[in-house]
């Protein structure tokens, strides 16, 4: 079992296959990690959801083969970056067509900080940064 004591300067890094069947593993990993950092249940559930959504976006919207999670925990917060190696296929969200329109607003609603750096052909690799404070 990976040592899941993430520190702010000692990130925990774990890669997953960018396949729908891997999302369950991603969630279990995040749950163990955030619980291990003694966050309350609600915060744990929020991070599990946020990371699952970000990982799902990698699978659906990019051609990346892998999803990499980089977790840093500190006294005041936990940060998980969801990274991929692909290029984000930019398009307007069409929730009626594919039902994925709610993912980003949901991530925003359940985290305290969120930012997205989209990969481009010249600089591939989208990074979604998700932060949950210990004290909301």
């Amino acid at each position: 079992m990976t040592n899941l004591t993430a520190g702010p300067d000692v990130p925990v890094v774990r890669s997953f296959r960018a396949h729908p069947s891997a999302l369950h593993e991603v969630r279990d990993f995040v749950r163990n990690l955030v619980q291990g950092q003694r966050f309350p249940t609600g915060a744990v559930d929020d991070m599990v959801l946020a990371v699952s959504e970000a990982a799902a976006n990698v699978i659906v919207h990019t051609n990346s083969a892998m999803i990499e999670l980089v977790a840093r925990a500190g006294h005041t917060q936990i940060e998980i970056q969801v990274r991929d190696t692909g290029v984000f296929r930019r398009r307007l969200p069409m929730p009626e067509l594919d039902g994925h329109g709610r993912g980003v607003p949901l991530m925003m609603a359940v985290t305290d900080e969120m930012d997205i750096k989209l990969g481009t052909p010249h600089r591939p690799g989208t990074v979604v940064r998700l932060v949950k404070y210990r004290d909301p």
Partner: protein
Amino acid sequence: MLLSIERPDEPRVIRLIGEIDISNAEEVSTVVEGDLQSDGDLVLDLTGLAFIDSTGIQVLVDSARRLEGRGRLLLKGAGEPIRRVLALVGLPLLSNVVLE
């Protein structure tokens, strides 16, 4: 199995046990499709549902919309984390959705 979809003896009741995400949301959609084609309330027993993501929520939203004017979508037994997410996206605000 990440998700079990069960039909108890009562008609128009579907039990969802486990987790719903992009890997199986379409399966849920396929299972409820039969009931959506006829009129009447549809009960989704969410007692055993541990996780639902935005694609799963979309299936619930689509189901409610399909039933509009013909029946209600009754969501029963959802635990606190699920209730919170559903409330966050405004699902209970739909006129024919009842979150019990």
